[in-house]
Every structure is written in structure tokens, then in C-alpha cells.
């Protein structure tokens, strides 16, 4: 068990922070892939 003086775990905050920036980036990448496939199908 961690002692009172041990620094708090930041795992949740790290996950939240990456989700915050990752979600719009994933949307941008999805739109990019959709458009890029036109090179092979268009």
C-alpha cells in the first residue's frame, strides 16, 4: 500500500489527456483515409 507521502498515480489523467487530443485526431485521420482512397477508386 502506498504511504501518505508517495506521489499520486497519474494513470487516469494521462489516459484522459491522450483521449482529449486523440479523438479529434482520429476523426481527422478517418476523413483523410476516406479521401485518400479516391486515388485508387476515383
Amino acid at each position: 500500500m502506498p504511504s501518505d507521502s508517495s506521489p499520486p498515480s497519474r494513470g487516469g489523467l494521462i489516459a484522459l489527456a491522450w483521449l482529449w487530443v486523440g479523438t479529434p485526431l482520429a476523426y481527422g485521420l478517418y476523413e483523410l483515409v476516406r479521401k485518400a482512397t479516391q486515388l485508387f477508386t476515383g
Partner: protein
Amino acid sequence: MSSPPVAPPGWSRWLVPPAALSVHLSIGQAYAWSVFKPPLESALGLDGTQSALPFQVAIVMLGLSAAFGGTLVERNGPRWAMTVALVCFSAGFLISALGARTEQYWLIVLGYGFVGGIGLGIGYISPVSTLIKWFPDRPGMATGIAIMGFGGGALIASPWSAQMLDSFGSDNDGIALAFLVHGLSYAAFMSLGVLLVRVPRTEKPVESGPSAVDGVQVSAREAVRTPQFWCLWVVLCMNVTAGIGILEKAAPMITDFFADSSTPVSASAAAGFVALLSAANMAGRIGWSSTSDRVGRKNIYRVYLGVGALMYLLIALFGDTSKPLFVLCALVILSFYGGGFATIPAYLKDLFGTYQVGAIHGRLLTAWSTAGVLGPLIVNWIADRQEAAGKHGPSLYGLSFGIMIGLLVVGFVAGELVRPVHPRHHVPAPREAADAQRQQPA
């Protein structure tokens, strides 16, 4: 003036890249400005040159604010810089919303271009120095993540802004509402960076200057007096110009190259090619910059410039014979373009230390502004001249490609001239400075 926010014990360095990304993914919207051009032209009766003005002013302000604001960013820390970037970038949209609502176009130029442009410049350099300090073992990867965000910002904003204009309408009220939503959304999104960013804990006060254990340290003022700075300036300028050579005319270029072939390129396929180039640009920023941590900065720039010239040569000689070859070479060139941007902060850290690397990076970005003018000028001017001379197809671009190869060779030579900085430019550590003072004759 504020003091930089120091990380509490146990603060994870993996919280700093998302903080940086929240800023870079936002300000990267600048490259999606073209979405607003047609609606603005029809709503306010502008021509193409006028509707490009806010973007052009923003890019000029990016270069100027990064060059002149770098020292302030170093002094006040990343939280101050990200706050300034948030306020300026969001305020730029809000002023533009007022401009669109009242049909006062000058307010859009002032808001998005001037005020928002300051946000771009300060925001671009805001996390660089902090990331390098948190990731001394992998500075290329760390700055690559942030600068990849600048490329990613346009990928997000381009479809998002287009969908918003579809929903709100493309008249001046619809544009005003879209600007308003952009301003508020980006303010909320960037606030993550302001809240999360921290500088690592050190044993000495942040403002006390470098210590002997920091290794070679050069101030921003001294760095611009070194040949190394100007060699890297030429390297960056040439590499960016070569990338813009493809980016600027990507869609018409692939169409012209295969116009007379059995499989001509349609407009939608050309749009797909442009999207693929954006992906290569982004992947190059994180991929090549991370690779530089292993192979060394000088070697990676040899690849960007040397192999880049070879790729241009292949396109010029055989590009019209094979579509896959053309696409592959263009993708490699664009990945080097992105890699060149993302690797430069780590190269500056290697040469000048971490002391004022953000400010030095800001000054070096004037090479980007120069290339932003030079690249399109060369490609468009030559293509127009060749067309006037009755040329068509791949021969429209032969001369441009030759010039791009020449520029890359110039960049390669400048890269080879980079040597470690002479000790006379180093900032003395406090103890060394005190010793030197004691040795001075009374």
C-alpha cells in the same frame, strides 16, 4: 510576468505531449483556411487574392511573433506562452466573427491574420523547449509528436469547418457563426495544454541560467551570430521550399503528368493524392524525427536533402512512365518535408543546448516564412511561363524540378558545413563565470 509552472513530485512526462498537441492540433487549423475562401468570396464579394489575405497575414505574423517572442516564451515559461496562444488564436476567430456579421472584411484580416497569427507563432514554439527538457533521451520523438500536431490540425479542421458551413450556411451570418464556434471550441480545447503543461523540477531556480552539468549552452542572441545557425537556416529553407514545390501544385501536377496516358487521373483521384501527401507529411514528422534520435541529426538531414534530390530526379526522368513511381517519390519528398520541420528543434538542442532552444527555434522559423514565399513563387511562375511557351504535360514542371534539385544540393552542402559551436559562444555556467571573474586582474 509569470514564473514557469514546475512539476510536482511524481508528475509524468507523458502528460506534456498531449498538452503540446492540444495547442498544435488547434493552430494547425491555419492550413485549412482555404475552406473559408469560397464562402467569403461569394458573401463579401471578394476575389481570390483578397480572400487569401487573412492566411498570408497570419503566416507572416507566425514568423515574426516566433522570432521576436521567443525570448519572452523562454523567460515566462510554457504556460504563459500557451495562454497567450489560446487568447490570441481564439480572439482572432471572435473578431473575425464580428467582421463577418457586420460585413467588415478588414476585421477578419485583423482578427484571423494579425491577432490570430500572433497566437500561431507563440503557440508553435510554446512547448518545444519544455518537451526537450522532459525528454532529453528522445528529443526528436518528443518534438516530432508536437509538430506532427500542426500537420494534423488541418486534417481535423478541413472537414469540420466544411461541415459547419454546410449546416450554418455560407452567407455572412453562417460564416460569422462558424467563426464564433471555432473560437470558443479552440479556446476550450487548448485549455488542456494550459492546465497540464509543467517544466521539470531542477535543483536550481529556473531563471538562474545554465549550470555546468547542462553541457554546451548558447543564448539566443549569441546563436544568431554563429555560422551553425545560418547553415541550419539554409538547410530548413531549402528543405521546405522543395516540399512546397510538390505541395503547391500537387493536384494539377499529377493530372498533367498522366493526361496523355491510358489511365488519366480524375479530379477526385487527384484530391485523394493531395490527402495522401498530407498523411506522408504528418507521418514524416513523427517517424523521421524519432529516427533522428538513433541515427543522428546530421545523418537524417543528409537523407532528407540527398535522397530528396534523388526523388525529384526520378520524378523528372521517369515520373510520367509509372503512376506508382510518381506517387511513391512524391510521398517520400513530403515525408522529408515534415521530417525537416520536426527534427530541427532537436538539432538546435544538440548544437546550442536547452538554455534558450525555444527562442532560437523561433528565430530559425524565419526560414519557413522565406520558403513559404519562395516555393510557390518558383513553381507557379515557372509553370505559367512554360504554359505560355506552349508546353504541356510533364514538361511544364521539368525546369521547376531542376531548380528544386539545385536547392536541395545547396541545403545538403550547408548541412555538411555544420560543426560544433565554438566555445567563445557558450554561456558560462555561474561557477565558471565566478572563477573567470576572480582570475581578472584587479
